[in-house]
């Protein structure tokens, strides 16, 4: 979604016409639909839950977008398009939203989807009794009283959402959130079938019990083996849905997934085994794909007193950032179409524009020379080597990158790096306690807007594990929330990050996958990689 789209969609009192068509991909001229419209893809792990309000992971969201439909959907470019809502108005400086729901929307049991279904679902998501790990998402929308309800100070009925009538949903927010409508594409804010949940309790997500309002219904589910979703004939736009059966196969091992894809058992696998993309691209140019993905990969400096005191000197941090040859990392280590990062926010983030930092324009040779000058000026270098402790979580790729970086620091700056790796949860605990000098970090956008990344640099952000604190950054980010065009503030924050170097941006992600050439309608340009099976079709080969 471009910022223009956001603005266009969120400008006060804007109404999307009720007659606007929803997004659907249709066969182009000369294409013949295949007889069997099935889509089979790989799941790395079993989806932890099929309950939209409890869901907290990417693979779960892919399933949720098929089974349920929220107020708004995304199209192939990530633009907002109508879902259950035909449109909405935003008033009161983006603090009040009124959504108009389409009358033809139905649950899979034939009941109409009403505004009350959304009210029930959203209260359920924030209710401490539900204990949803994603309750923070409702809190992040700043919906009226969300924080107090989560803290148990108010009942869920006090949440700032009401059903004005069956087809009108009114939402009130405590702060101005221009991108609220975009947030309704997240499964936490999907509707929920109250009668079914009350009847079956936690077993309501089993095939046979589950009632859903999306383009598909759950037909089979064997945990850790597979699940199947079939076309929902009650879906309001069922006439435009081509794929009739979607199967998610759990295949933990990435190489095994590739073998089974090549044997024709799957239509899509993601990701690909590390380093194999160039070879696969050459062999299967119409299937191997790499597209930008809204995530960054960085190393964070420990800015607190528990770190090596040398890191307090900005020249040391700067030298270490300059000495990293990012091209080597993306081209020789990862080899999957990732892009080298010189700023924190991925440049392809919607509406984000920032000046290219000065060191990006330099050659690596120039950067290395500057790095040596800076570290020597700070009183370190090969004659007076610095000793640092680097931590990362156990993973083959992270290990390779850490090794390459440590080697670059050793050769260019004489820094002795002790590398330590930990199992994921242990790693998070250690990083949270600032028990490191430099630590690996990565972040994927919760929504397609720069603040999802830059908030991490705000001093009291719980993800700010390096504990970088800068008053100006805090003020700029606070101010950006109510600005019509927050971009200048974002650019300024990036500038401060370039000067202060609390983190070393390393690369921006790519989604690297194999897709059966017969499957059409894949949203290659949606950088959040949010796909809807209802938008695909399979052509005859």
């Amino acid at each position, binding site marked *: 979604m471009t910022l223009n789209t956001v603005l266009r969609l969120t400008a006060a009192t804007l109404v999307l016409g009720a007659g606007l068509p929803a997004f659907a991909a249709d066969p182009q001229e000369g294409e013949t639909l295949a007889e069997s419209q099935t889509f089979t893809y790989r799941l790395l792990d079993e989806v932890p839950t099929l309950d939209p309000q409890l869901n907290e992971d990417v693979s779960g969201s892919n399933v949720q977008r098929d089974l349920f439909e929220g107020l708004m959907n995304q199209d192939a470019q990530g633009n907002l398009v109508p879902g259950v809502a035909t449109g909405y108005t935003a008033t009161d400086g983006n603090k009040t939203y009124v959504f108009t729901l389409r009358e033809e929307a139905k649950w899979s049991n034939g009941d109409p989807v009403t505004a009350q279904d959304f009210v029930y679902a959203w209260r359920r998501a924030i209710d401490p009794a539900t204990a949803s*790990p994603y309750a923070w998402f409702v809190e992040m929308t700043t919906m009226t009283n969300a924080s107090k309800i989560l803290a*148990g100070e108010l009942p869920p009925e006090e949440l700032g959402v009401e059903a004005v009538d069956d087809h009108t949903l009114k939402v009130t927010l405590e702060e101005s959130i221009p991108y609220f409508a975009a947030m309704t594409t997240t499964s936490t804010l999907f509707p929920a079938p109250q009668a079914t949940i009350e009847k079956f309790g936690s077993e309501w997500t089993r095939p046979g019990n589950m009632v859903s309002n999306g383009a598909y219904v759950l037909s089979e589910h064997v945990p850790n083996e597979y699940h199947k979703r079939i076309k929902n004939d009650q879906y309001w736009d069922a006439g435009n849905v081509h794929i009739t059966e979607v199967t998610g196969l759990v295949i933990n091992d990435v190489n095994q997934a590739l073998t089974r894809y090549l044997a024709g058992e799957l239509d899509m696998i993601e990701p690909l085994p590390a380093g194999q993309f160039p070879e696969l691209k050459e062999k299967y140019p119409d299937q191997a794909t790499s597209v930008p993905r809204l995530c960054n990969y960085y190393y964070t400096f420990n800015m607190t007193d528990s770190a090596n005191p040398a890191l307090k000197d900005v020249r040391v941090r700067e030298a270490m950032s300059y000495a990293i040859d990012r091209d080597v990392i993306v081209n020789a280590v990862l080899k999957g179409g990732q892009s080298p990062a010189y700023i924190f926010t991925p440049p392809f983030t919607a509406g984000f524009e920032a000046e290219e930092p000065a060191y990006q324009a330099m050659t690596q040779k120039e950067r290395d020379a500057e790095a040596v000058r800076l570290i020597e000026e700070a009183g370190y270098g090969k004659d007076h080597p610095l000793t640092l402790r680097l931590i990362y979580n156990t993973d083959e790729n992270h290990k390779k990158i850490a090794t390459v970086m440590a080697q670059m620091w050793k050769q260019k700056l004489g820094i002795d790096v002790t590398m330590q790796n930990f199992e994921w949860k242990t790693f998070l605990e250690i990083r949270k306690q600032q028990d490191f000098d430099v630590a690996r970090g990565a972040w994927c956008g919760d929504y397609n807007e720069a603040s999802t990344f830059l908030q991490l640099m705000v001093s009291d952000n719980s993800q700010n594990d390096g504990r970088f604190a800068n008053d100006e950054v805090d003020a700029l980010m606070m101010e950006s929330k109510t600005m019509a065009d927050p971009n200048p503030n974002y650019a300024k924050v990036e500038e401060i990050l370039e000067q202060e170097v609390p983190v070393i941006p390393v690369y921006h992600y790519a989604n690297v996958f194999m897709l059966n050439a017969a499957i059409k309608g894949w949203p290659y340009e949606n950088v959040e990689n949010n796909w809807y099976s209802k938008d695909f079709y399979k052509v005859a080969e």
Partner: protein
Amino acid sequence: MISYILRRLLVAVPTILVLIVLSFLMMHYAPGGPWTSERAFPQAVIDALNAKYGLDKPLVSQIASYTWNIVAHFDFGPSLYYKDRSVADLIAQGFPVTLTYGFWSFVVAVAVGGSLGVAAAVWHNSWLDYLAVGISIGAQVLPNFVMAPILVLVFTLWLGWLPGGGWQGGAFPYVVMPVIALSTSFMASIARITRSSMLEVLNAGFIRTARAKGLPMRRIVLRHALKPALLPVISYLGPAFVGMITGSVVIDIYFSTGGIGQYFVNSALNRDYFVIMGVTILTGALTVLFNLVVDILYAWIDPKIRY
């Protein structure tokens, strides 16, 4: 005999209790917890989650109520990771899978391994012996995580004979590769143990007497040598059987069988406390049970053993 079995079963109760307490403590003192994630949850969310699953109570009362729920209601608690499943659900769904491929692996391992071992011992130092030893060493050095991808490469990608994974309720084509991959190393061990114990028995005095009497070799082996030669094999088979029927993380990961083997690793990584406990107790109970079965078999095979 009956009183011996009863005594053994009684001793099993405190054994499993100790297992519960130790596992519970180790699990809780591991860094991180079920709610540790890249995005740090707000305290209110963590409090709500802890309250829902009873993790806000003191450790002693958590262990006590966990144990009580098992004893009184046979309730093994919810999964903290698979939020719409209970531990009992997960085990009820996955255990029949591992039981099936584990059982057939056991049958294959014992039948093939045992035959190889006996043949190698009877025709000691012949080409058959070398072949059997060669096969068993080959199978031993080829671990299942190497074997599994090779099998899929050959039988799925190249030959197209078998599906690359899945279970489909245990349909034959889905069971073949898991059984081959799981049984080979057990088969190799059984072959080696059988061979050496058979060699020892064949050199014993009573066999020499039998030979001197002019009994045919087949009768000597089957009737006189096999039973005593099986003793060391049987003590190996008890734990091996438990190992096989509780599945293997490698088999589950490579063949997407949906068995419980993967929970031994994944539940620990996810800090899915009650699933860790569930699979630990299951394995503990089965180990106790099959050790008892082994001891009973011993008494049946060796008349010198009395309980």
